[in-house]
């Protein structure tokens, strides 16, 4: 790892100030991607601004069916929240299958979505739920937030502070793990929300997480796994790599979507 300077932010304002004073710096949340990337010398931020010790951006708040999850909330807390599981079990299940138990104790929702790894789970969950991503300066819909491979709408120095969503009527998540890394080779999140049916796919798209309008229409008229049988999944925009080619992933997208609907609660 290249040399770096560590700063521990005490508040959101403090973090943003530290970031603007250190242009080549990076925000550090759980570090489950960033520290590994730095160890491989694929990233060399001059400064790290640690967000894990800002109480205001940690924790889960539920008011009626409105859910707010602080950006620095670890995956393990989301997975274990009984209050959240009572109204949106799919997001708890999703969080409980990220990485492994040790990674889930450190990794955070804000870090995951700001990184927007094309095989990460949370982007599918938040896009599927139609969540709102709140930053230090504005609110963005998930549709506008995730813009491409490791790309988001976040501006220079902007940090995620929380995500909010209304608990859906029903939602489910199914993922086909890469057996070595536990990243999604394909993961599909389906949700029946007040704004309609939403289906989001991770791990498969060559431009990162995406919605599948064909699945959404089919499920809107008939919420059942069988409704997806005749919907075509176009392989031309899917990833091909050593784990699976695009055609294989196209099939996985449909299989995972069906399982997600079947498991939805």
């Amino acid at each position, binding site marked *: 790892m*290249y*040399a770096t300077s*560590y700063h521990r932010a005490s508040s959101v304002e403090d973090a943003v100030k530290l970031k603007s004073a250190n242009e080549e710096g990076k925000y*550090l949340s759980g*570090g489950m991607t960033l520290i590994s990337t730095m*160890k491989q010398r694929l990233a060399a931020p001059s400064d790290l601004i640690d967000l894990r010790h800002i109480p205001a951006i940690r924790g889960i708040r539920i008011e009626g069916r409105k859910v707010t999850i602080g950006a620095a909330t670890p995956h393990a807390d989301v997975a274990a929240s009984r209050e959240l599981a009572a109204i949106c079990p799919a997001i708890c299940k999703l969080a409980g299958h990220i990485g*492994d*138990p040790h990674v889930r104790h450190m990794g955070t929702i804000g870090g995951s979505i700001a990184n927007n790894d094309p095989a990460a789970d949370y982007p599918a969950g938040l896009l599927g739920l139609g969540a709102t991503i709140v930053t230090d300066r504005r609110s963005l819909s998930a549709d506008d937030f995730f813009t491409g491979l490791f790309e988001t709408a976040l501006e220079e120095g902007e940090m995620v502070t929380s995500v909010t969503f209304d608990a859906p009527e029903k939602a489910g998540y199914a993922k086909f793990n890469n057996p070595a890394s536990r990243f999604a080779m394909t993961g599909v999140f389906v949700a029946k929300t007040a704004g309609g049916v939403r289906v989001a796919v991770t791990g498969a798209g060559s431009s990162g997480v995406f919605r599948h309008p064909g699945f959404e229409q089919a499920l809107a008229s008939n919420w059942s796994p069988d409704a997806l049988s005749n919907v075509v999944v176009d392989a031309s925009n899917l990833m091909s790599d050593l784990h699976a080619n695009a055609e294989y992933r196209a099939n996985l997208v449909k299989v995972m979507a069906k399982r997600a609907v079947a498991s939805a609660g």
Partner: protein
Amino acid sequence: MTKVTLTVNGRAMSGECEDRTLLVHFIREKLGLTGTHVGCDTTQCGACVIHMDGLSVKSCSILAVQASGSTITTIEGLAGQGELHPVQAAFKEHHGLQCGFCTPGMVMTAVDLINREGGTLTEETVRAGLEGNICRCTGYHNIVKAILAADAEMATGRQAAE
């Protein structure tokens, strides 16, 4: 150089290190506690698992400065005076190790799992709980057996205490 202060196995400890120093290197080289191992160095194998503020974490993927101020338990902190921790005793009894390299991480993972889900563990949940730990010798079978036995033993202990 930055001063890092930790409570390790019940004792206040501190040392100076670069900001880029990994927690596992700090523990092994500055504090001299070499029971925590570095296996893969890529967050996959789990040989470096310790407890930070009561939760299992991979110390090869955390900077020592990130951990400063926290309470750490390493494999050296488990055993009582002259007596193995029930998980350690179960690994010995059920031959849950061969070369032993992954064992510190396996034991720390098992203790964390029992702390969180003790009394409800099954073969399936133990195997899921070991997702972040790799053993290249045992085929996991005896590790799973040892953890289930330790869980049962510790549950009996809890009942006896009540």
